[in-house]
């Protein structure tokens, strides 16, 4: 058995790559689904009727007040108990997407409510309908406002994806643990995993900054 870190790394190269692939897939799926759902949550919070608003408000408060790990376990075991055979991957992604949606919902609500009332009035005054006002005037402004907080949430989702190791999803952390159980190089491989998570999130952050720059309004 070879004992240098590089040799062990070479042996584990496919396992690690696969782990990163799963981590990135989980994160992308959860961020995408969570953001789409989150936009509707935000819309309901701002424009919904009293009943809808109360229901969605309860949804976001409950989800945001629950630890992500509990959501992950609940999604996996509850779905199995009610006969929905989701499997660990889908159940995990579902839990993260729900978690993401409650945060994105709050971000979207805040962004929409931060737009001065005069914007809606000016749009109305030239004869725009509500849908036109929303798509041409409010949403483009809200998106710019959302971006920094949304990037934060996306990075949180990557970190939260590690929790799926608990229900047996072979993402980067679980793969790393498997590797360490074979070669006992815990320090080296945990550092490696940490470094890889950092690179993914650093990439997300920089992509966010790039989009922010691209969409910034000249002043």
């Amino acid at each position, binding site marked *: 058995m070879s004992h240098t870190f590089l040799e062990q790394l070479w042996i584990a190269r496919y396992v690690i790559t696969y782990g990163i692939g799963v981590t990135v897939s989980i994160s992308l799926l959860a961020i995408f689904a969570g953001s789409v759902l989150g936009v509707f949550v935000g819309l309901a919070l701002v424009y919904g009727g009293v009943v809808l608003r109360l229901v969605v408000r309860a949804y976001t408060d409950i989800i945001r007040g629950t630890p992500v790990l509990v959501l992950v376990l609940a999604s996996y075991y509850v779905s199995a108990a009610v006969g929905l055979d989701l499997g660990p991957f889908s159940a995990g992604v579902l839990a993260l997407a729900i978690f993401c949606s409650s945060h994105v919902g709050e971000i979207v609500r805040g962004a929409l409510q931060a737009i*001065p009332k*005069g*914007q809606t*009035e*000016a*749009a*109305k*005054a*030239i*004869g*725009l*309908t*509500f849908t*036109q006002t929303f798509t*041409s*005037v409010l949403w*483009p*402004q809200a998106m*710019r406002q959302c971006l920094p907080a949304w990037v934060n949430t996306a990075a949180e989702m990557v970190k939260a994806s590690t929790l799926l190791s608990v229900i047996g999803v072979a993402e980067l952390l679980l793969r790393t643990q498997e590797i360490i159980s074979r070669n006992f190089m815990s320090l080296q491989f945990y550092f490696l995993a940490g470094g890889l998570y950092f690179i993914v999130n650093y990439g997300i952050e920089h992509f966010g900054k790039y989009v922010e720059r691209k969409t910034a*309004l*000249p*002043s």
Partner: protein
Amino acid sequence: MAKTILDIKGLRKTYGIHEVLKGVDCAVREGEVISIIGSSGSGKTTLLRCVNMLEEFQGGTISLDGEEIGYRVDGATRRRKSEKEIARQRALTGMAFQQFNLFPHMSAAENVMLGLVKVKKMTKPEARAIAEKWLDRVGLAARTKHYPGQLSGGQQQRVAIARAIAMSPRLMLFDEVTSALDPELVGEVLQVIKGLAADGMTMLLVTHEMRFAYEVSSRVIFMNQGVICEEGDPKEMFVRPKTERLAEFLKTSSFN
């Protein structure tokens, strides 16, 4: 006598138990420039905002070119018209606001084009041509690609006026359009409004610029506590106010 464009009858507006407009009657004829003056809280801005349904009103009628604005009154029943119908009616009037309310994510030209494209269903080149014509008219031909954040307050307000006027409204509403401007920028905006008045645009202005009201208005309406207290020719009214209220108001205002 010119045809009546706007006819307001018995307009009442309440916020809860507080009555802001207590039965306002007012008719505006084509080409008239009417200034609405009065102290804050007199209901002048609310009156203006009822005309394009930015405020709901609880009693009376407003008709524009014979068309009832906002509500369908049928005997004793009074129903709000559909959102789509109200949106169409709002496009019949143009409005400029105290805070300009330009869309910050659009260039000056795009601000003007939005209504033309979305409401008037023009193609982009058609809309752009009209936008450029009106921006040129308000003296901003060189600023069409600038964003609101790159323009001074006076320039922003002129874009906002171009945005409203480009829709060829039957009636223009100006809501204290110079109140948020630095004193040295007021002149350029008033100049634009004077030009529109000279063109024969029918206008209703809420203003604190007494000198301006005196110079451009064909008629002045003085509001006090939700009713029209006095109205008439500014040359007459400002010099010889009939009511004690107006005399007092003119004394404390910047006129003279």
